[in-house]
């Protein structure tokens, strides 16, 4: 689905992504892990078009999309969530969800005046969808709160909710689970699996919670210092010495044994 070739990105003196190549396979839930500052979010930003890579290529479904802007990638079926939640803080939670579908509405200046009824129907359908999503994520009771006033965890859920509002091909999730309570986390996991199996969404998710990763993801890709460290099943990765070293520092694996 997504294939990244030899990607580089630096910020000042920091080489955040340092020549990485990887594949996100169609139909799978791929995990992306790595220590803090490994460059995971930067990689997502590159894939999602937040900024262009210094060098390298990003392919989406066989098409070169390097350098495309986020709104162009949206129309190609790529959705993402932010590690630090983003919301339209002057809109309510419900309006936030409905905003995702704005560009999909068929409306011209003429229909805005004369075909209000069809528009109304479209909007009702979208509103119902938003209702469903909020019900599922347990944020229905704050539907009419301004999104800016939601708690950190609720904002995270709203982020995930956005990706459920439209049909996507591939969704990349940046730590959706962080700061969300355990029970709900399990349900979110179920939802991701469901969307993956029934709707055929491809997922790639950054997560620090190894249990969550082991449960959902196969394969798991490990990054460190802007590079690909290794790739394999959760079990393989967990017992890989290089991975343990990357997380705990050099010599740690021998010290542990």
């Amino acid at each position: 689905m997504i294939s990244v070739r030899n990607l580089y990105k630096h910020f000042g003196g920091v080489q955040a992504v340092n020549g990485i190549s990887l594949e996100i396979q169609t139909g799978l839930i791929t995990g992306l892990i790595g220590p803090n500052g490994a460059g995971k979010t930067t990689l997502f930003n590159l894939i999602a078009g937040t900024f262009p890579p210094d060098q390298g290529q990003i392919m989406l479904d066989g098409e070169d999309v390097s350098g495309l802007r986020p709104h162009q990638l949206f129309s190609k079926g790529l959705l993402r969530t932010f590690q630090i939640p983003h919301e339209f803080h002057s809109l309510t939670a419900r309006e936030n969800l409905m905003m995702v579908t704005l560009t999909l509405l068929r409306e011209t200046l003429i229909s805005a005046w004369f075909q209000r009824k069809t528009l109304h129907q479209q909007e009702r359908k979208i509103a119902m969808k938003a209702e469903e999503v909020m019900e599922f994520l347990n944020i229905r009771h704050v539907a009419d709160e301004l999104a800016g006033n939601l708690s950190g965890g609720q904002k995270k859920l709203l982020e995930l909710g956005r990706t459920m509002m439209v049909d996507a091909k591939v969704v990349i999730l940046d730590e959706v689970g962080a700061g969300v309570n355990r029970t709900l986390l399990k349900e979110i996991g179920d939802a991701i699996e469901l969307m993956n199996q029934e709707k055929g969404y491809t997922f790639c998710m950054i997560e620090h919670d190894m249990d969550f990763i082991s449960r959902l993801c196969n394969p798991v890709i490990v990054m460190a210092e802007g590079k690909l460290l290794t790739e394999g099943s959760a079990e393989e990765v967990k017992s890989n010495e290089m991975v343990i070293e990357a997380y705990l520092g050099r010599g740690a694996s021998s010290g542990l044994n």
Partner: protein
Amino acid sequence: MDFLNAIVLLSNYVLIPSLVYGSQLALGALGVTIVFGIMRFANFAHGEMMSFATVSTIFITWWFQSIGLTAGILPTALLALPFGILITGLLVWATERSVFSYYRQRKSKPVIFVIASVGVMFMLNGVVRLFIGTDEIIFMDGLKFLIKAGEFKKWSGLNEGLALKQTQVLTVLLAILAVAWLFWFLQKTKMGKAMRAFSDNEDLALLSGIDPEKVVRATWFISAVLITLAGVLYGLDKSYKPLIYFHLLLPIFAAAIVGGIGQPLGAILGGYIVAFSEVAATYAFKKFLRYLGPEGWSPEDLVQLLSTEYKFAVSFLILVLVLLIRPTGLFKGRVL
């Protein structure tokens, strides 16, 4: 009787003029605020764009007049207005393409945009004078007064006359129409919603498939409409002088900032606040008070806070006060 005279006097010299001037400032401030709400910079070229818009409309008006096309009792400039809007739209779009889009692509800081807009301001200032010269131009034709002071006196039997110019009524009517349209556009249409989303959180708007180029284009177009309306209505009501719009920049910015920059409602309210303060501060209340006071009494001096030459000091003062006391303006938070 004296009380009625006082009211008429006040309406004629303070209330109506500031309502009209306030509408013109509100239209100007709305343009500044919309551009700020989307592009996050204060467009210093706004005043000169108004000047350009007015000049384009004047040229079209002259052309219409020369081929005998007029609008009866309405000013010919009203017929020229749509063309003025188009030409201004083209100018604004040309500055966007040749100046602002360059800095946007480089993701420059807002202050760079501001300085670039100052450059555009100086350039336009020169270009406009090159074409139309430096003379004062009166381009209002058609019926001048809807109510004449003398006729009003005869009709009412009062000492004070009330005059109502056609341009005053036109200004207020067109301002109401423009504001109503703008709010409908921002609240109800897809592009309006996209603009508000973009103004709220650009990253997220992009992720929802909103095309930033389209948003910027729509914003400049709306700004061109407001620029032309504000410029032409002001010029019709007073007269066209090249530097007048340069001076108007201060009250317009004051209005936008009083209301909280980026807030359409605030810009409108700010426009009226600045206009009323300016007119009231420079009006001599002597005669007004004489009507209200006891028979035969009269204030010693003119009871005028500032002489009219200092009227721009009022905007300046308001600006300073707002920035000191409530830098976010009257309405804060929600932008667009």
